[in-house]
């Protein structure tokens, strides 16, 4: 295990654990949820011990995820306030995606895209939790129109959230040297200087 002592600490152990608890819950929820969403995905219920088990487990995993998501939200919300630099970053996001980050404004610990992701995820989680309660027939019974409304919202928002998580995962794969921040907490100084220069200055005093 070679670690440069000058690497910058991006996440502490409990932040990382929190992230992965939410992440694993999300994967289980996405797999079981897709199974109910489209017949093509129904075989995924086998991963959970069959259709009935998938139906039983899905909402409990949802409650579990919602709880740990709230903890994660409280940990990170102060770092995700939108600034003018973030708005400018978002306006130039296309340049970034084309692989040209020369004109991108300096970013703090999170860039505008990450902050957008944070707030969109939060909104999705609120909608999914509330609509999930409406369709959790084993525990709650609500008027049928509310259950129908809940089912549409739950399906549509879940699809949006799965798409956003794909983008989230891809962004981590695309930006080399990022994933280690969530495995063992550190990033190189060069990485920080390249992608989050304001945070780099704050951490190193340079």
């Amino acid at each position: 295990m070679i670690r440069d002592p000058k690497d910058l600490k991006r996440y502490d152990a409990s932040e990382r654990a929190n992230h992965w608890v939410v992440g694993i819950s999300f994967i289980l929820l996405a797999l079981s949820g897709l199974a109910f969403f489209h017949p093509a995905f129904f075989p995924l219920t086998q991963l959970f011990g069959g259709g009935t088990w998938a139906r039983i487990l899905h909402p409990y995993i949802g409650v579990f995820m919602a709880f740990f998501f709230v903890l994660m939200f409280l940990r990170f919300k102060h770092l995700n306030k939108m600034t003018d630099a973030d708005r400018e970053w978002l306006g130039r996001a296309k340049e970034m995606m084309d692989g040209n980050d020369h004109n991108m404004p300096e970013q703090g610990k999170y860039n505008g895209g990450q902050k957008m992701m944070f707030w969109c995820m939060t909104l999705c989680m609120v909608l999914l939790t509330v609509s999930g309660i409406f369709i959790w027939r084993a525990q709650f019974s609500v008027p049928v129109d509310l259950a129908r409304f809940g089912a549409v919202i739950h399906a549509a928002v879940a699809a949006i959230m799965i798409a956003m998580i794909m983008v989230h995962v891809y962004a981590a794969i695309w930006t080399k040297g990022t994933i280690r921040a969530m495995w063992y907490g550190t990033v190189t100084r060069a990485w920080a200087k390249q992608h989050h220069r304001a945070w780099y200055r704050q951490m190193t005093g340079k």
Partner: protein
Amino acid sequence: MALQSLDIKQRSATTTPSPQARQTIEIAKLIDVSACIGCKACQVACMEWNDVRDEVGNCHGVYDNPMDLTEKSWTVMRFSEIEEQGKLEWLIRKDGCMHCADPGCLKACPAPGAIIQYANGIVDFHQENCIGCGYCVSGCPFNVPRISKTDSKAYKCTLCSDRVAVNQAPACAKACPTGAIQFGSKEDMKDYAAKRITDLKERGYEKAGLYDPAGVGGTHVMYVLHHADKPDLYSGLPVNPSISPLVALWKGATKPLATLALAGVALGSLFHYVMKGPNEVSKEIEKEIEKEDAQ
């Protein structure tokens, strides 16, 4: 029970066609509300034939007993006292599954083969494939399916699919002492209803008519109503039932669009990587850091 494997028209959560080689005649049960005396023989016959016994409940001071459909009471008589043109009328409707041609339950069901529509029109629940999610309850425009508290499976009237499969009339029709429940081909039932309606009209029920709502493609349980213009008089029979637009949206456009969108995002990411390459730290910055360290 999949007794008629070749006569399946639709199967829940299945995107390929069901075996369709054999064609069977479309059947229907006709409930002539004007001939019903509210004896509940149909309720008894249903429990008897299907070997289900509901909990003994309490008297609520009305004739309805049990008060609602349950996982063990697949049909109940609903009694309503109304005043029409200054006359008291006692309307008694045998409630239960309507066996829609366009079944909302089947559309909503996520479990392959848990809900089957036979070519003869019967919509049947196959509890061994049911996962207990209750989506059928959301899908139904008539509020019919019930989820058991004991086993979490959905239950409802089978239209005695097992009896019909061997050319027997449903148990309720067999037991009805007044002929208020008729059973036969849908065509014959419509003819029979037409005669009843003519008779009712002659007796002063000008708005008498057949309840076979087009919004769900017609049903395989039909009613002869003395007030066909006001079905809601009959303990809230829906005036113009159809699959809720929310269910149609959820199980219609959302499914393929969202699936395509997710595939698009996954493939888009892959090709972005392939075409634009990774977002690496520039050599320039790495050198700057190395220079700092050397100092």
